[in-house]
Structure formats: structure tokens, C-alpha cells
């Protein structure tokens, strides 16, 4: 537990020291949402809004997870020697979960205010927010595992996107489906089956990555 806390503190310090990567992600968000804002003007339907929002969120979480795993080249030897692999994984996972949820909340606020104010009017907002948190957490878990595979490599930048997207696709389709239902204002009863689906897929990838990560980390 102490180790997990120190990993969390280390990641937080890293983000404050080298804030360029964090700010880069924010910049990516704002600029792509502005591009959408200009190109779509007012002709955005709920389904298109949903698709744009999730595409932004997926690449957002890929970038975040990559930042968490790939920016400690020099410190890697200390992490390797001082921390148990499982604790390292849990620490990094928790940090990226928190970070991704914050960033996705920002993403949601921007998309909502600029692109979809009238779209979200009829939405079942609590259902949408919980789908949002669940979906992004599940994706973060899967991308974390894949990024930890890539962390071993010299040319690691493309690893998360190429290896991670096939893993995340079913979760993503369930998420997009349930988010669409939530936007259209359906009740919990309708949304619940796909939420259960999302939960099952996320917990599957969580269990697998916890079992397999020690093998990746040991050299």
C-alpha cells in the first residue's frame, strides 16, 4: 500500500515537473473540439455527437496512458529495483484512472458547451455520466496493460494504439451503444444490460493484466 502511494506521488510530481505532456493533451482536446465546432456548425445529430465524443475520448486515454508509462526512461531502473511489479502496476493504473476521468470530464464539458447543448437537453444525464466513467475506466485498464508491454521497447510510441485498439473494440462498442441510449433519454432498465457487459469486459481485462503484468516486468 505504501509503495502504491509513493508511485502515485511520484507520478503526480512528474506531471508537475514536466507539465508539457499534460498540457499537450489538453491542447489536443481543445483544438480538435474547435475543429469539430467549426466544421459542423449546427448540423450535429445525437449519434454523430456521440461518435465524435468517443473518438476524442479514446485517443485521449491512449495519450494519457502512454504518458504515464513511457516518460520514465531514466527512472525505470529505480522503479525496477525498488518497487514490486504488482504495486507498480496498481499505482500507475490508479493514477491513470484518476487522470483519465478528470480529462474526460473536461472533454465532456467542452463537447457539451460547444457542440451539444441542445442535444444533451433530453439526455438521461446520470446514466450518461456513469457510462462515461465506466467506459473510460475500462479503456484505461486495457490500454495500461498494452502500454506496459510497449514500455519495454525502444520504439514504443505506436504500441498502445496498434495493440490496444483491437482489445478495446468490444468495450468501446458497448460503451458507445449505452451512451447513445443515455443521450436519447432512455431509462436505466434499457441501459443496464450493456452496462453489465461493459463491467464484465473491464473486469476481465483487469484480472488478466494483474495476473500477467509480473511476467512482462521481470527481465
Amino acid at each position, binding site marked *: 500500500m505504501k509503495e502504491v502511494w509513493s508511485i502515485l506521488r511520484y507520478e503526480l510530481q512528474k506531471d508537475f515537473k514536466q507539465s508539457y505532456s499534460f498540457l499537450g493533451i489538453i491542447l489536443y482536446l481543445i483544438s480538435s473540439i474547435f475543429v469539430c465546432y467549426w466544421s459542423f456548425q449546427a448540423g450535429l445529430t445525437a449519434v454523430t455527437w456521440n461518435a465524435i465524443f468517443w473518438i476524442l475520448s479514446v485517443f485521449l486515454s491512449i495519450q494519457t496512458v502512454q504518458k504515464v508509462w513511457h516518460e520514465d526512461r531514466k527512472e525505470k531502473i529505480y522503479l525496477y529495483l525498488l518497487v514490486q511489479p504488482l504495486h507498480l502496476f496498481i499505482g500507475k493504473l490508479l493514477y491513470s484512472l484518476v487522470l483519465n476521468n478528470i480529462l474526460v470530464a473536461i472533454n465532456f464539458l467542452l463537447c457539451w458547451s460547444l457542440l451539444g447543448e441542445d442535444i444533451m437537453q433530453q439526455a438521461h444525464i446520470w446514466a450518461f455520466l456513469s457510462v462515461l466513467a465506466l467506459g473510460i475506466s475500462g479503456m484505461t485498464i486495457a490500454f495500461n*496493460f498494452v502500454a506496459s*508491454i510497449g514500455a*519495454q*521497447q*525502444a*520504439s514504443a510510441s*505506436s*504500441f498502445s494504439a*496498434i*495493440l490496444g*485498439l*483491437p*482489445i478495446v*473494440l*468490444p468495450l468501446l*462498442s458497448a460503451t458507445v451503444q449505452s451512451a447513445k441510449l443515455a443521450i436519447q433519454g432512455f431509462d436505466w432498465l434499457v441501459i443496464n444490460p450493456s452496462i453489465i*457487459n461493459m463491467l464484465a*469486459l473491464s473486469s*476481465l*481485462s483487469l484480472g*488478466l*493484466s494483474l495476473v*500477467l503484468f509480473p*511476467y*512482462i516486468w521481470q527481465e
Partner: protein
Amino acid sequence: MNLLNPSYKIVAVVLLAYTLFYGLKTPLAPSVYKVQSSINADAVVLDIELYNLNAHNSTIDLYLEDDGDKWQAKSIAILDATHVQAVFEKQARTNRTQNLFLTYQSANLGGKNSFLNAIQVPMAYLQNENQIATAIEKSTEWHEGMQVFPFREQLYETIRNLFFHVPMWFVMLFLSAISLYYSISYLKNPSVRKDMIASQAIKVAVLFGALGLVTGSIWARFTWGSFWVSQDVKLNGAAISMLLYLAYLWLRSATKDDLSRAKLSAVYNIFAFTLMMVFMMILPRMLDSLHPGNGGNPAFSKYDLDSSLRGVFYPAVLGWILLAIWILEIRIRLCKIKPSAKSIYGK
């Protein structure tokens, strides 16, 4: 199993030859392809299109049955080899579903002998309007002494694809299970050989998976109307599994260091196999799918009561699996001699 023992190759060839010959040669059961009814002032006329049954060489008898009431056809006219026109009395028309019974005695099917067989065609009720196409939901046949495949609406002759499309996925699962076994045992106790077998098995599995996708696509075009049905969970699961294994191959080619390549790809392989099991085995059974046996659809085994399909299907599965083992063995041997060939020829 000693893979250099050639006997399993002979078995594979024999089984696949048997599959190709009987799978493509066995005729479909004679049946009724389409029935059109028209109602005159004093009679009900049925235009019947036959399938695999030559009207000129057979004696055909027709009657309609409805809750125990039977109406024999007043007259049967043979229009051409596959078209028969039957006239029934006006009283045969009711508002309820009727069964059309067609019994035939044919000399030209099955070769030597003639058989007396019957086909039952449940029909939508004959209505007052002229010329309504009658929906045939399912016809039931009785055949004695003939080796035929069942005649199914929608499937028709494509029922033979059962021996090619389905075994492809069995082989794919079999090979990825082999690969999974070697990947797990690599993580427990690393060796170059295990890594090699695991990766080669995936390469062959991807080949068979691609064949499964192609045969399935063609089948879907015929039966479901389009090459890809995007709502079908099993199709999407299969596509994602293929993507996972392609990503596995990409991971192997992108990693330069031999040791970390073996380790990382073994880990990714375990992940990929587990997800594939979820996508292809668990989710389609829970959600809707057009495939037999999924989403509340009856499995194939419920259809082929006469088990004529099974007699070819099981040998086909075994034959394809043995063929895959054969390909895998050749690939493994190739991998073994590659390093020494490199040292000899310098390339």
C-alpha cells in the same frame, strides 16, 4: 505425437478427399421449391415447382390435408420436368394453415431402385385473392434408402458449406489453443522451441481464420443477403479476434530483441485468446446472432435428424484439423532449418 510419422497425413488426405467427394456429390433431397396458388370460380389451382425431382420420370400424387380432412387433387398436369399443376376442389380452401402432401415414386433418383417418398409442405392459408405466392416455412421429407442432404429453405445447396466454413473456425480455435498452451508453458519455463511453435501456430490459425471469414461471407451473401451483417455479434467477434492475432504478429515483428519478443508476445497471446473466447463463445450466446445455436436460434444438429450431414461433417472437421497440423509441422521444420540455411547461404 511423433509429427514425422506420416500416417496422420494419409488419414488427412483420405478424410479431405471423402469430404470433398461426398460433401459436393451427394444430392439434396427432392423437394418442393415454390408453390403458387390461384383460386377460380370452382377450383383451387396450385402451381408447384419441384426441386431435384423429374416429373417426367416419376409418379406424383398430391393431396391437401387440414385437421384430418383430406382432399385428393382432381387432376395433375405435368408442365415440364420441374413444374406440376394440380387442381383441387373448391372445398379445399379454408382459412387455416394447410399441409400439402406430395408423394412420389421415382426411378431416376438414388440410381437403381424406385422409392415411395413423401414431402410435407406447410402452407399459409389460401386466400380469396387470385395468385398469391404461398410461403413455405419448412418442408419435411421422408426418404428411405437414399443418401441425400436435407432440403432447407434459404440454405438450399449452400448447406454443403457446413463442411468448409465451420471446420475452419474449429481449426482456428484448435491452433490458437495449441499456441496458448505453448505460450503459458513458455512463461513458466522459457525455451526457443516453445516460442517458435506458439508463433507458427498463430500464423496458421490466422490463415484458417481468414478462410473462415471468406467462406462465411460468401455463405452470408446467399442466405442473409449481404457479405457482412454488421449487427451480428459473432461476425464482429470473429473480426476482432483476427485483429487481435494480427496485432500479435505485428508485436512480434516490431520487437527487435529475441527474448523480450518471446516474452511479450506470449503474454499478449494469453490476453488475446481469453478475449477471443469471450467474443466468439460467450457473447454470441448471450446476445442476438444469426448463427445457428446462438441468440435463441436452434443449432444445426436439431435440423439434420437424418444425420446425413454428420456423416460428412465429423470427418471434415478431423481432416481439416489434421491438415492444419501438417501445415504447422512444415512451418516448424522450416523455422528450424532457417538459421542453418542462413549460415550456409548467407541470406
